């Protein structure tokens, strides 16, 4: 029974990973990836690894989404200019 929270966290992570692959638009994928980062943070907490959880939250909640979204923005802006 003590493992229920671990199972839930792992299922959420697996679900988020699957969704991150299935969602094909990069901006939307970035949203799913930020969730994946959060859920990984939870998995690390329930597996008693707060240090790893902290770094995952630090990277996954803001840094990676920012990098991906900036790339998406650049690519899109190019696309628009090319289309004109």
């Amino acid at each position, binding site marked *: *029974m*003590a493992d*229920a*929270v671990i199972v*839930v*966290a792992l299922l*959420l992570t697996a*679900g*988020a990973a699957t*969704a991150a692959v*299935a*969602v094909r638009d990069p*901006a*939307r994928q*970035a*949203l*799913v990836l*930020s*969730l994946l980062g*959060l*859920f990984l*943070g*939870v998995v690390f*907490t*329930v597996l*008693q690894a*707060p240090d790893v*959880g*902290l770094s995952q*939250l*630090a990277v996954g*909640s*803001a840094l990676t*989404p*920012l990098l991906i*979204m*900036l790339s*998406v*923005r650049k690519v899109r802006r190019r696309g628009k200019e090319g289309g004109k």
Partner: protein
Amino acid sequence: MNGWILAATVLLAGGAGTALWGVATGPLSRRVVAQNLSTSVVCASLLLLAQGYDRTAYVDLGLLLAVLGPVGTLVFARLLAEDLTDDRAAAWGLTWTTVGVDAAVVVALCVAAGPGRAMVKLLVVGALLIGGNLVASRALSGGFQGVRGG
């Protein structure tokens, strides 16, 4: 397994599961709202887990998420502002519900912690989380006007 962990499990299964569903499907406006919601839910569960494992050191995770989670939502609000102008992402009912849940969790934890440094930390986390959540919701519903170039 104690009550705190059980509460965290329920919160994760219900709240985070819903958030995952919301982020993975539907229109963009719904997805960003779900992303914002997930921060609150996960942060509250992290705080509950810290109490459940009886490790005050784990509260740092909640603190960090309360600081950075809304920042992440602001990233999306800002860089997707053009896509969000057409259908604004406003779900104030949902936002206030999660704020209520967060407040309840923080109050319960404060009661359990009793007065002291731990309680101050919890209150700071709670304030950051609730404030961040509200501001991020505001940002999603048209917080960035005329984002062009910048």
